[in-house]
Structures are given as structure tokens and as C-alpha cells.
């Protein structure tokens, strides 16, 4: 049965695809240019201080972003099974399982897996504790140096000693990178990197804020797709140029009163990582009913404005204060503010089997947000890339009931 198209595509997507293809192609052939150009290869977590690596002219690639690619291409389940057969638990994060699976069976993996072996591994625990064990496993597989930045969980605000603890580690990381690359840290270059990161973050923030307009110029799948550069290319010229282009297009939509979802009737907020293998199918259940996800906590995680001051001190604060490293109170407040700022009628939380720190406290947050805003919230059980966890019919049932509640029948 043909359904009426209710979704407006972005022209910028073509440029995004080109840029990401180029980044992955360059990464894939790193072995050809890395050594001659003295640019070592690092595998790095999404919440790590990449500016420091770029200041050392290190080429970063992101296993988590690669995991998302495996998810959208629907090969994660196969790769997860490879990792499970090798002894990794089914309860382990599916990005980790997909990535480990891609190392064990590159023939099943998109682009044959990430370029390997990496010259180093860089892991920051601000997003979860799993990354530490995942990267330790990688360090054993490839026998390469592992640099860890341990950010203490913040039950309240960032304390002076927590900042000092992270700052000392950053200093040690500088020493380690100087030893690994054989060159001293160029502070001017680090400042330039941080300035470009700030610029990228500022643009991403402005694009997101444009979605306060009614109708919203973007829907959640747009945010998830167009967040790729803020993760992988943050601090590069290309990313800045790209987000300028995207911002112009989004602004134009707002000026013309164009909404991402035709006939927007319901405005929603999304919580947690995307369901990558269902990135369009899932949200179509909403857009067909005129429901648009005007903002989310996930792609908003990269709107972390760099604190001013000494670059290392600034990074110590910024990278420790990210929302996944914060209390349920902080996250409930963040959700409440999003609902108010974006005039949302409800919110949907993806209880993501893979991502424990993101999902465990959702029920507490949901109740608090519902109490304080009076808008309904729905929890859907799924996984970001492991399709075996997604039960189509029960989800459809819950979504329909939720939309009947929000929209009235």
C-alpha cells in the first residue's frame, strides 16, 4: 500500500554523504599516507578530547560511529553474533560487539572494518564504563598503547578536585602523545583546534535551536544523520563549512515556514541513541500521524560549549561535564528545559539495551518530567544496533496508544 510522503529531504545530505565518504575512504587508505605524512592512526571514543589528538596531527576514527554505520546497514546482528561466538556476552554494548565482530570477520563488515591496526587507542569514560573494557580488549588484540581519560561521575556540579583529577590525566596524556609521536605539543595548534571545535559546536547549537520554530525544520532522523561530522570531524575546516551550509538551509526552511514533517500537529522530544536499523521506519510511525521530533538529548550531547581559559583546564571541565556523566536530577532538568524551550507535547525514551548509563535511570526521569511538565512520556524497549531486540508489533502498539494519548482521539 502506497503511503503519502510526509517527509521533506534536506539538500545538504548530498554534501554530508560526500564528506563522510571521503573521510572513510581516507581512513581506509591510512596505511598508504599515514607513515609518510607522520600522521598516526587513533581509534577513539566519541566523548574523548579529540582536539588534543588533532593538535598532534593524529588521524582519529570512531568505532562508535562505525557501529552506527553497521546498524544502519543492518549488519550489526551478524557481527554481534560473531563476537558472541568468540565469548563476548550478549549483554555487552552492541557497538562494542559489532566492532569486535568486524575485527574478527572483516568479510562481513562494511568497508572491511576500520583501518587497522591503530597506532594507539584513546578512551574517555565520560560516556560509559563499558568503553574501558572494550578498549582494553582492543589493546590486547592489537598490542598497542591505550590512553585512558577517567572522568569521575558527577552527582552534582563539577568539583575542584574532580577537575584537578582530570587535568592531571590530560597532562599525562600530553606526555604520552609527545612520546608516541616524537614531537612536543604545539599549544598554538591546540588553541586553533579548540577554536574550530567551538565554531562547529556553536553552529550545531544554532541549527538545533532553529527547531524551536513551528513547524520544526528538522525531525529526529535529520538530527541523527547530520550529527556525524560533529562526532567524527569536530574541529576540522570541513565540518565548519558543512554546518554553515546546513544552517543556511535550515534557516531558509524556517523563513519559508517549511516543516520537516508535513502538517506538523504533535511536537516530541527524543531521548537516547537512535535505533539505527530502523532510523526511518520507526520515525515514520510518528511522521505519518503528523508527529515531529523537534529535538533530542542524544545529538544534543555534542553541544558542549568549551569552557574558557587554559586549553587543558577547559577540556578537563568540558569533557567531564557532559550529560551522560551527570545525575538523574541533571538529566530530568535537561529534559524539562527541552520540553519547555521547544514547546513539546510529549517525549519518547528509547530504553536501549546496549547503553546502560543512558537507559537505567529513564523511568525515574520519565516520572519526574511528566510530573513537572504535565506532558506524557513513552518508553520503548529496543537496542541501537542489535535488531534481535526490536519487536515490531509491540512497539507499533505502544506508539499508536501514545499518539492517541498525546494527540487526543
Amino acid at each position, binding site marked *: 500500500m502506497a503511503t503519502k510522503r510526509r517527509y521533506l529531504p534536506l539538500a545538504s545530505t548530498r554534501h554530508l554523504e560526500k564528506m563522510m565518504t571521503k573521510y572513510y575512504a581516507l581512513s581506509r587508505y591510512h596505511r598508504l599516507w599515514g607513515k609518510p605524512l607522520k600522521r598516526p592512526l587513533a581509534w577513539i571514543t566519541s566523548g574523548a578530547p579529540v582536539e588534543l589528538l588533532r593538535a598532534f596531527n593524529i588521524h582519529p576514527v570512531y568505532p562508535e560511529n562505525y557501529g552506527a554505520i553497521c546498524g544502519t546497514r543492518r549488519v550489526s546482528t551478524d557481527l554481534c553474533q560473531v563476537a558472541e561466538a568468540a565469548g563476548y556476552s550478549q549483554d555487552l554494548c552492541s557497538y562494542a560487539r559489532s566492532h569486535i565482530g568486524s575485527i574478527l570477520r572483516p568479510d562481513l563488515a562494511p568497508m572491511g572494518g576500520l583501518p587497522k591496526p591503530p597506532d594507539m587507542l584513546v578512551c574517555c569514560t565520560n560516556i560509559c564504563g563499558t568503553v574501558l573494557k572494550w578498549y582494553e580488549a582492543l589493546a590486547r588484540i592489537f598490542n598497542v598503547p591505550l590512553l585512558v581519560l577517567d572522568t569521575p561521575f558527577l552527582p552534582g556540579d563539577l568539583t575542584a578536585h574532580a577537575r584537578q583529577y582530570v587535568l592531571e590525566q590530560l597532562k599525562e596524556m600530553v606526555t604520552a602523545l609527545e612520546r608516541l609521536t616524537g614531537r612536543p605539543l604545539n599549544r598554538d595548534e591546540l588553541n586553533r583546534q579548540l577554536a574550530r571545535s567551538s565554531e562547529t559546536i556553536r553552529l550545531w547549537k544554532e541549527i538545533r535551536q532553529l527547531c524551536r520554530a513551528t513547524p520544526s525544520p528538522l525531525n529526529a532522523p535529520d538530527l541523527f544523520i547530520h550529527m556525524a561530522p560533529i562526532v567524527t570531524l569536530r574541529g576540522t575546516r570541513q565540518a565548519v563549512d558543512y554546518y554553515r551550509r546546513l544552517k543556511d538551509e535550515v534557516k531558509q526552511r524556517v523563513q519559508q515556514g517549511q516543516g520537516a514533517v508535513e502538517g506538523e500537529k504533535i511536537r516530541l522530544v527524543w531521548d537516547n541513541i537512535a535505533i539505527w536499523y530502523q532510523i526511518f521506519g520507526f520515525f515514520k510511525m510518528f511522521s505519518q500521524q503528523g508527529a515531529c521530533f523537534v529535538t533530542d538529548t542524544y545529538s544534543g550531547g555534542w553541544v558542549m560549549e568549551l569552557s574558557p581559559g587554559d586549553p587543558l583546564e577547559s577540556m578537563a571541565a568540558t569533557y567531564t561535564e557532559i550529560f551522560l556523566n551527570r545525575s538523574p536530577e541533571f538529566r530530568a532538568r535537561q529534559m524539562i528545559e527541552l520540553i519547555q524551550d521547544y514547546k513539546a507535547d510529549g517525549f519518547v525514551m528509547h530504553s536501549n539495551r546496549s547503553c546502560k548509563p543512558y537507559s537505567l535511570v529513564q*523511568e525515574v526521569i520519565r516520572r519526574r518530567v*511528566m510530573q513537572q511538565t504535565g506532558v*506524557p512520556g513513552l518508553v520503548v524497549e529496543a537496542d541501537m544496533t542489535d535488531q534481535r*531486540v526490536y519487536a515490531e508489533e*509491540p512497539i507499533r*502498539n505502544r506508539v*499508536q*496508544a501514545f499518539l492517541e*494519548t498525546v494527540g487526543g482521539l
Partner: protein
Amino acid sequence: MGQYFLGVDIGSLTTKVVLVNTGSEMVARATGRSGYSGRTVAERLVTELLRERGMNKNEIAATVATGYGRVTFPADREVSEITCQARGIAHLFGDARTVIDIGGQDSKVIRLLPGGKVIDFAMNDKCAAGTGRFLEVMAQALELRVEDLGELAAVARKHCNISSFCTVFAESEVISHVSAGAPKADIVAGVCDAVAARVATMTSRTGLEPEVVFTGGVARNSGVVNALAKQLGCPLQVPGEPEITAALGAALFARGIIGD
């Protein structure tokens, strides 16, 4: 122009059809096992219902379908069973604020406002523990009819403990209780406790405000009704025909399509 409104609820185990008149009174109902094709069963039930009453199809002004098979049935509209359940219960119990529904494959807790508007709901995750299917599997393992479970639970002297969330593992637990020589009644009481415990936990997500109405086929099982009332610490109202309330809600929505 027809004078009657049809609600069809095609559930995972049972299909229910309800007919209401312009005064929103239920005039007829029928139920049958969904089997392979819930749609076919629903169509047969409707045909029989019309024949018994000497009515023809044209007298049905509007139809609303709900339940897992809702998209398969040709209706004027499909509405989720959560919304239908709330509507049906608000019609029967004006003071109802919480509905606990245990069907074949789903168990759910619905919080509602007067008039039946849903304010929140919780459902079981992808697991059949705490559902009618769970009870059927256990009844089968004990060679009992599912409708006899309640009576048997009432004469239990001691409740066996069934702790597993997984239906298959819980069945193994039942079998080990049998091997250990536990009386059937004690095992059945344990099975009812396990279903109630699973659903009682769900109420902590939505909150529990009286009056509480218990619906779905499992509400016919007095063992589960008693276990649940005990665990929740509050009385439960059970409709006379607890499995047809979502179909009734669907029929009332069909009535609403035409307007008052």
C-alpha cells in the same frame, strides 16, 4: 442508515466482538479463539451475531477494530487496545482510575481520567511472563484446564515459589515442584502469585489510584485476582465479562464516529 456500532478486538489468543446501539448500550457480544486467522474468526462471529438477531450488515453504522489483528480487519478506524480498554472501562465504571489488563500475550496497566482519557500506561516487555499465555503453559504442564486454576488455588495450603521470569524456565520450575511431590493446588497458587507479582511491579511505574479495575481473560481466574489484590493491597473490581471490555470500548468509539 444503521443503528448499531461494532467493536472488534482481535487479540493474540481470543477474538471478541461487541455491538452497541445508539444509546451506547451493549446489545450483543461473542468471543472465539483467534487461532490462525483472527480476521476470519471475527468475520464469522459477526455473521453469527447478525444472524441470531435477524439483522443484516447494513444495520451496522460504523466499525472500529482493535487488538493485535486490528489492521487485518476491514473497519472504519483502528484504535489501539489501550485507548479502547480505557474507554470501555470508563463506560462501565465511572470511578475507575486504574485498569490492570492481562490478556493472552500482553499485560498492561493504564491510568485514566474520568471519561476514559489515558494519562499513562505501562506494558510488559517482550516476554510472556505475567500473561494468559503463561497460565496456559503452566496449566498444560499440570494437566489442568486453565479455567480450573482459580478454584484449585483457593484450596492451597502453602504457596510454591515460582521465581523465573522466563515462561520456559518457569515451566521447568513447576515440573521440579511436581517431582518434589508438591500438591497441585500449592503449585497453582505459586503460579498465580508469579503472574500477579509481574503485573504488580508494573503498577509502580504508572502509580496506582483507586478504583482499580481488572480486565482481560485472566481476570476470570480468581487465583490471580486474589493474589493481585493481596500484593497491591487494594480491592479490585472485575467486570462481569472481563475479556470483552476493549471490544466494548471499540464499539463506543465506532458510536463516536457518527456523533451524538
